[in-house]
């Protein structure tokens, strides 16, 4: 067992042979404080991880995707017709799956009018905080909120709008969501009078995939309003990019989209007959998905890194201390040494 001593690569020096000084102690204290600070930031970095972005081709064979919408249209619900046409040539009767409520048309406060939001990729933590799934409420009879038998009808609002909301599954191929009026583009039993149609609108929510109402999309809280030309064709071209956010086991599967918007005046295109007045959302799904994930080092790697940084700092501090001490002794003399200042306690017998 005594042979173990020979393996000791860390031989100690007896205390009596060591010289200590208050300046050395102060330097040590500062070094330890700095080490604590570094360790704290390293721990923060370890727990925070770093953001890694990858792009993958979706290997899952999908059939449908959900469109979530909440729109105010400046036309009575009776005259609206909503369809989806896509690459498969199917016509989806969306009107049967959405909720339509009569309402007095208005543009809510804080809505961007005749403009769309800046398109930004949200932060990972922001998404995880806002990814609260929800469902649309049931349809309400909005007219029942007002007493229509009241002789004083002056204060009754005019129900000149329609609140269209709900989630609809559509084929996951390029297509178009069409909000038009009855008999425009499709055969209908009733014909909507052109003078009663206005396609001014407010988009409160327009998103693809699972419905997360708190996640902002480029078209959320935007409006298009043209008082002079109510019969306008509004077209939105959207390109959808599936995006998966991952952090600490939590996964949020969303769909970002970029958008361009165009408008055509009915009087300009009526002769051609190829553009109906209405609101049209053209969508296209990109094959590449973005995977935004929070990545962190393994614990062993982190420990090795932390120890290496701390030991390097201690080593650097001791070197700086030694070199500074040598410099002071060389330039200003031994009495300026940081390492050893003689006092009564440390004086030898012959020095007293």
């Amino acid at each position, binding site marked *: *067992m*005594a*042979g*173990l*001593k*020979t*393996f*000791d*690569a*860390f*031989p*100690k*020096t*007896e205390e009596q*042979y060591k010289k200590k000084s208050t300046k050395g102690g102060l330097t040590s204290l500062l070094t330890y404080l700095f080490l604590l600070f570094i360790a704290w930031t390293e721990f923060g970095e370890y727990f925070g991880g770093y953001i890694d972005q*990858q*792009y*993958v*081709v*979706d*290997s*899952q*064979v*999908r*059939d449908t995707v959900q469109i979530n919408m909440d729109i105010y249209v400046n036309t009575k619900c009776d005259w609206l017709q909503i369809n989806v046409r896509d*690459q*498969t*040539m*199917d*016509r*989806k*009767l*969306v009107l*049967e*799956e959405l909720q339509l409520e009569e309402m007095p048309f208005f543009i809510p406060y804080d809505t961007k009018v005749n403009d769309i939001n800046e398109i930004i990729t949200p932060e990972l933590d922001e998404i995880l905080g806002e990814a609260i799934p929800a469902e649309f409420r049931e349809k309400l009879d909005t007219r029942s909120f007002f007493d229509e038998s009241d002789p004083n009808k002056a204060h009754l609002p005019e129900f000149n709008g329609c609140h269209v909301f709900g989630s609809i599954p559509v*084929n*996951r*191929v390029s297509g178009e969501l069409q909000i038009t009026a009855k008999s425009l583009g499709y055969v209908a039993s009733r014909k909507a009078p052109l003078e009663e149609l206005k396609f001014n609108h407010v988009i409160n929510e327009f998103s693809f995939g699972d419905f997360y109402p708190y996640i902002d999309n480029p078209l959320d809280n935007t409006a298009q309003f043209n008082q002079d030309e109510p019969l306008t064709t509004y077209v939105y071209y959207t390109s959808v990019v599936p995006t998966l956010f991952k952090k600490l086991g939590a996964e949020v599967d969303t769909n970002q989209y970029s958008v361009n918007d165009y408008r055509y005046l009915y009087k300009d295109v009526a002769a051609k007959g190829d553009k109906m007045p209405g609101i049209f959302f053209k969508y296209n*799904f*990109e*094959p*590449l998905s973005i995977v935004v994930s929070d990545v962190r080092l393994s614990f*062993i790697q982190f420990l*090795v*890194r932390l*120890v*290496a940084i*701390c*030991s*390097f700092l*201690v*080593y650097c501090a001791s*070197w700086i201390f*030694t*070199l500074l001490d*040598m410099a002071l002794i*060389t330039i200003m003399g031994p009495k300026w040494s940081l390492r050893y200042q003689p006092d009564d306690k440390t004086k030898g017998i012959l020095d007293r």
Partner: protein
Amino acid sequence: MKRSTLLSLDAFAKTEEDVRVRTRAGGLITLSCILTTLFLLVNEWGQFNSVVTRPQLVVDRDRHAKLELNMDVTFPSMPCDLVNLDIMDDSGEMQLDILDAGFTMSRLNSEGRPVGDATELHVGGNGDGTAPVNNDPNYCGPCYGAKDQSQNENLAQEEKVCCQDCDAVRSAYLEAGWAFFDGKNIEQCEREGYVSKINEHLNEGCRIKGSAQINRIQGNLHFAPGKPYQNAYGHFHDTSLYDKTSNLNFNHIINHLSFGKPIQSHSKLLGNDKRHGGAVVATSPLDGRQVFPDRNTHFHQFSYFAKIVPTRYEYLDNVVIETAQFSATFHSRPLAGGRDKDHPNTLHVRGGIPGMFVFFEMSPLKVINKEQHGQTWSGFILNCITSIGGVLAVGTVMDKLFYKAQRSIWGKKSQ
């Protein structure tokens, strides 16, 4: 330079050996430090040798080049004699009835077992010359009204309008837009045994395997029944025999479907999906897909919409594979159109050809998956030094703690 000056510059001051204390605890700590260092160095070496694939996005510049299409599809309720493959794209290029070139077809019995190849009889094919012909040199086969033969009496033998074999009659019917069915009562077809063979095979299935070249633009490929023909109104197939045989359908198993060079061809990749982060899956996401709806799908169209992303794999051994990944969407509809129980609020379009369609379009972006070492040489050396330094630092601290603890507990001056 004076020796004393050099001495004063020595930052690595040593302590005399006779005032240094060595302990057993120090020895144990040293041994554990050596073992820990070895473990960490082996770990670093493993990480240095690990191979990672880093994806990179670029704009695809190879738009002019052709793209390989590889497939292996089984139709359990569709005889090889009737099935046809056409490839069409937006440039107007058509590859009609291409199963005779680059594809092998295996006939399957009702249990799905192979019963022989299908080269001897294929409705879309042009015959292989083995069928018995009429040996009379003056023989001019009738076209049964599909072609005008009224002037034949006044013409020389080589100028006569004739249908010498079953395939010629079928082509004449196709040009006239007539339904050919199974060729019954057509002398040439009866003589060649075509009628009996095709009726014998009507309860069989077919497995089609092979490859073709497609242009890198939007288009579609489709398996459909009967011989294809083109006219001013569009692209059609003679589905007459299919229409009257109600047990036929395009229920299918996609054993393999990919675009570009198969990634599995690289020996390293076999069974090594982890290394590519699942990229192998995305080159053929439809593999193993079985479509057998629980309803009559005789008049039914199955569609896949594939968005192709050109992909290059660059390996460490300088092997480069140009291939493609794709994402797919599936859709099916009855040819009768209207609503169905699966989609109550959807009006399916009416008409079309029964079959299996793959609509493809190309992405302008290209993914380059590049193999790299997990670390560079300099990174590896730096990490090794870091590991050694870190372990020594921890060892020093632990040794000091042990030494001080021993001294304070047992009051030992030395050990």
